[in-house]
């Protein structure tokens, strides 16, 4: 049984990576969309304060564009770490979704510290090794993360189930996703409280995984926790929760995608390519004129009058 859990761990990591790569590559491989930005665009620097753009200048194409990384960070940090948009526009949902997300962030932080401990152990550090002094923080982040994620997912489940405005738009996928978190985090909480309060089993398990050392898992509850965690880990990027990484494109490429086509060879090559795509729309103003590509269709005037 232990070997199967280790095997599930490898499968989960591979599935996770494949799902993430698949989503990102699928997005990138699609043709570049037309510009459809929404203001305020965060990297506009000083102008972002009033929602302005470089288009506020005469002869904007002759001027050097200023893109402010700090401006982006000023928007991204409150959005990522405090869910600012939900706070501003959907306050009743904020507490539950923030608890859930903060829990996840803490768990991510916990995993980061756990991996430091794992590698410290692999390279031979003892329990007194400097790197292991992060353990109290790791234990706090792990414990708090599990509790918050559990509380948040229960609150979200309850809201989706009981609030008519959310219930109408909640599919089984929502309940399954949240249910998986509730079950997984409940087991994790019990494991943390009663079986592995210092996450030593967790550390040892990952060390064993990395070293392909399939030592029997010392506790059944811990084994169950790992099974659920691996399933959840593999499952998340297959769902709409993949927004945790796709949000990069939704913000940077779409909402803030204001890159103008000024001596932009990449965009010009793209336009040259897409205008040669075949068009198969059936409406009479598009089809039926013997025009088959976008270039042909777009330069054809179906109602052109002879020049008088």
């Amino acid at each position: 049984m232990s070997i199967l859990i280790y095997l599930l761990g490898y499968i989960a990591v591979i599935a996770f990576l494949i799902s993430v790569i698949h989503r990102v590559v699928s997005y990138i491989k699609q043709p570049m969309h037309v510009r459809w930005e929404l203001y305020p665009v965060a990297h506009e620097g000083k102008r972002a304060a009033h929602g302005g753009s470089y288009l506020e200048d005469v002869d904007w194409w002759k001027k050097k564009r200023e893109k402010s990384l700090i401006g982006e960070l000023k928007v991204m940090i409150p959005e990522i770490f405090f869910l600012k948009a939900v706070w501003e526009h959907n306050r009743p949902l904020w507490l539950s979704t923030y608890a859930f997300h903060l829990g996840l962030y803490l768990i991510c932080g916990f995993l980061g510290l756990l991996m430091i401990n794992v590698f410290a152990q692999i390279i031979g550090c003892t329990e007194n090794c400097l790197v292991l002094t992060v353990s109290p923080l790791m234990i706090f982040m792990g414990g708090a993360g599990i509790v918050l994620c559990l509380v948040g997912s229960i609150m979200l489940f309850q809201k989706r189930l009981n609030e008519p405005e959310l219930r109408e738009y909640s599919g089984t996928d929502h309940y399954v996703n949240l249910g998986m978190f509730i079950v997984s985090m409940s087991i994790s909480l019990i494991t943390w409280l009663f079986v592995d309060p210092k996450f030593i089993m967790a550390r040892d398990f990952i060390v064993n995984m990395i070293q392909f050392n399939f030592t029997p898992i010392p506790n059944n509850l811990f084994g169950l926790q790992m099974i659920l965690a691996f399933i959840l880990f593999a499952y998340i990027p297959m769902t709409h929760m993949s927004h945790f990484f796709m949000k990069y494109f939704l913000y940077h490429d779409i909402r803030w995608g204001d890159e103008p086509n000024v001596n932009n060879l990449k965009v010009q090559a793209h336009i040259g390519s897409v205008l040669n795509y075949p068009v198969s729309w059936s409406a009479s103003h598009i089809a039926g004129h013997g025009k088959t590509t976008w270039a042909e269709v777009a330069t054809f005037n179906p109602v052109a009058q002879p020049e008088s």
Partner: protein
Amino acid sequence: MNANKKLSINDVSKDTEKLTSVKPEDLMSLPSWNVKEEDWKPISEDLKEKYVCILDDTLILPVPKPKTIQEEEALVNQFIEGMRKLFTKENNWTFLQILETTMNHCARCNTCSDACHLFEASGRNEMYRPIYRSEIFRRIYKTYVKKEPFAKWRYGDLELNWRTVARLGEMAYRCNICRRCAQTCPIGADNALVAREIRKIFSQEMGITVPELHEKGSMLQLEKGSSTAMTKLVVKDNVEFIDEDFSEETGFEIETPWDVEGADILLIHNAGEILAWPENIAAFSIIFKAAGLSWTLSSDLAAYDSINYGVFYDDVQFARTALLQAQAAKKLGVKKIVLGECGHAHKALTVIADRVLPEELNVPRESCFPLLRDIVMSGKLKLDPSRNNFPVTIHDPCNLTRLMGIIKPQRDILNKICPQFREMHPHGAHNYCCGGGSGYAIMSRNTIPEWRFKVAGRKKLEQILNAFSDSRGPEQKKYVCAPCSNCKGQLRDVFEHYELLEKESLIYNGLVELIVNAMVDVNPGYVKWEEE
């Protein structure tokens, strides 16, 4: 509780006379407002016989009523075929990335709901909730096009029948595509785009379009040169009349230049201004002459009318129009195209066309507002702000502000020439749509005007009344600066319907009119409160 708030997604497929109705008592209340709204006028039996009228009390998209089971099936099959094409890169390279990410990542959390002026104005009618429409579209896509495993179970079942399709098409025209909902989305999903993409399926695949946008809009522009049906000869004649009339009235001699090769600027107006607001055309000519600019209009096909209704419903029509406008600029050899006061034209040619125009047609394009700001600030015009000493507020056209970030130039001008300028709240990138956005301002069939007044334009009316809360009533003349032809069309009809000139001494017009009104080289009284 309002019964409409209980509307469920599955109701869209049901055999009911209509999906919903916004009753007068449901409407959002307005400040110090004693106008009693009437119930909807009924849609005529003739229309009901010809077209599917089962959404609410209005008919915008004329979907022919299927008479047989075969016709019902054909409607569904055509729609599904169109949706398949919509999710192919060949047919929808323009928006596929954005649409697909919205389909896959919307959390259906309702964060966008309160941002929608239609949802608010209708008394939170469920049909206007931005994700109501999107969720129907998403369920059809996941189940019938993408065919995801267990899609019905995962996302929710939805019966796909002709009613679903017809109602979804009509529902795509219950959105101004102002994208205020998208602005609030924590994830970055764009439910307004979904409305536009549904319109595309109906137009590009099914050949079902709104006549004002298609036959009398983009097709007329491709045929005659303008959606106003003005040919090049007529438009030149009309502008000549404008030059004569306003030269006499203002005492400032103007002669609008046409087809000047090698001019610095090709100015493209919304041709609707020429017929409905000639003072806007004249004001540009006066300002540009006074500033000593080298500029011209073009009489080439589609190049004397900046409108591009394709933005609202059809990518092919969009591309055709943008290409013609760029070709005209290339032919004249101008240094740049400047867009007049028309929001969607700004967005279409300056931004969206940026990834459509091939290199040889990529003539630089800019808004008129930064140019006007530089002119006003340069001191080239002698201006007397006391001529504009009345309360002025500005309506921000969505296309200019939220979708292009052109916000400050207009304010720099108003702050300089209008002593009583005040903002609406919210404004700038967070503004509310006028209610005419995405084409409604030019529609006046059946009960469409009623819908524009009662629902679509209600939030803007509230904002206007609030902006002038210190000067309500007919005694104080007030001015809403709406620097967009489409928005002016909406405000014109709303103001007329509610008699705001009579009751509130409230008028609307553009920005250039205020500039000319302040010019000391021009006879006083360019801005008028009465017909003269």
